């Protein structure tokens, strides 16, 4: 049902936790299924230097949260602005049609964290 990539992230989720004094936090919940991703990021210059994530919900949500941290660390903020749920889904190999919303939730967490970071540091 799930790809080896999804399974691998479930078995060994990456960057689990929460940064102290993060540049930005994105805490998003899918109001239908109540899956939740809480992403904290550190921004240095115009790059995202560090990320930690916590997640609860169905397997692809946990996998999407985990893979997201791998996709975003070290990237320029303007590159991150262009990321879509498809990037997350692709990194996981494939998500069942009924589970695409898990990739959306990860992207929403990223957007919210970046918005929060920019609110604190206007002009980034």
């Amino acid at each position, binding site marked *: 049902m*799930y790809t080896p990539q999804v*399974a691998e992230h*479930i*078995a060994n*989720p990456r960057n*689990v936790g*929460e940064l102290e004094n993060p540049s*930005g*936090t*994105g*805490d*998003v*919940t*899918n*109001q*239908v*299924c*109540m*899956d*939740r*991703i*809480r992403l904290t990021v550190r921004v240095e210059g115009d790059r995202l230097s560090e990320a930690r994530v*916590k*997640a*609860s*919900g*169905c*397997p692809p949500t*946990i996998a999407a949260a985990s893979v997201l941290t791998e996709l975003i660390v070290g990237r320029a903020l303007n590159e991150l602005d262009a990321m879509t749920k498809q990037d997350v889904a692709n990194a996981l190999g494939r998500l069942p*049609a*009924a*589970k*695409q*919303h898990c990739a*959306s*939730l990860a992207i*929403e967490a990223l*957007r*919210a964290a970046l*918005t*929060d970071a920019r609110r604190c540091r206007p002009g980034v």
Partner: protein
Amino acid sequence: MRVYLDNSATTAVLPEVIEAMLPCFNEVYGNAQSVHGFGQRAKAMVERARREVASLVNAAPGEIVFVGGGTEADNLAIRGIAAAYGARHIVTTKIEHPAVLATCQALEEAGAKVTYLPVQADGIVNLDDVRAAITDETVLISVMYANNETGAIQPIEAIAAIVRERRERGQKHLHLHTDAVQSVGKIPVDVKRLGVDLLSLSAHKIHGPKGVGALCIKKGVHLTKQMTGGHHERDRRAGTENVAGIVGLGRAAELARLHLGERAARMRELRDYFEQQVIARIAQVRVNGDRERRVPNVSNLSFAGVDGESLLIALDLQGIAVSTGSACASGSLEPSHVLTAMGLTREQVRGSLRVSLSALTSREEIDVALAALEETVARLREMRPDEEAAGIQSSLSRSQ
């Protein structure tokens, strides 16, 4: 080590059963309807199996009709009675297997009235609700013997007493069916003591092959056959007998009868040990359903703050097979209808896990599962965002 704890879904076929079936493929391969020796030898094997299945549930061999599994047995019982007596009113419960629920819903769409009885928090149907639901138009009551998710045993004998009262008062066409797929081989099942007219059972839940089952039809009960063709199975189920499958069911039934007591005691001891250890080692766990009135091989648990499917997948990655009542599709939860009917909260249903043992389950398997469960629940809870953190920065969204 691979650990299989999903025996309510299906079981491994025992070597003795496979051995009994093998000659049916290339030695005794005649059509059981044929007059010649090849056919008669096959027929003799089918009839021996019939006696074994009858013996397991204390029925007469002539009361056993072999079918293609539990789902077909339920369909034949419900549709067969509805067709014979008019699909006027059927009483069933909200916690039935889809084989019964979807069949009743199909009849409802075709014009029948169906009452779906609720269950109490313990997962058991209330007798007053049964009594109140029966009308003069009721032709069938279908209540499962043991529930497939919680193992909860329903008061079939008491329902049969209610049915008898109504019959004595003139409601001759009222019948009682029970889906005993999850109770046969786990607890004593005696059609006479239960007082049912129709009882469904399946081979693959008792270490037999898939694709074969039986409907026990009490002598004198008439129903309309649903599979038309030849006059097989005393004209109640057309189609060449699945001799190998039937022989496998017969042998599995024989073993289930001979070893029922020791198997049940062993499964109960391991199941109770499992539950006691889970409760001792993992915080915030609840056992779903009545802990006494249930089959000895099922444990249905809810782990607070954990998604059942994530738990299932994480355990599967460690070679441990279990089941969950939690399912999320397209961002909408489609939780277990059984746990929902019992009044569990959304979160409790979401965190539910079913562990089901068989006669083959070992203590070692249980210990491996316990260690993995403890570690995995802790890991998933560790990963869960704090409740109180939600307010710090929150962008609540409705995503698709």
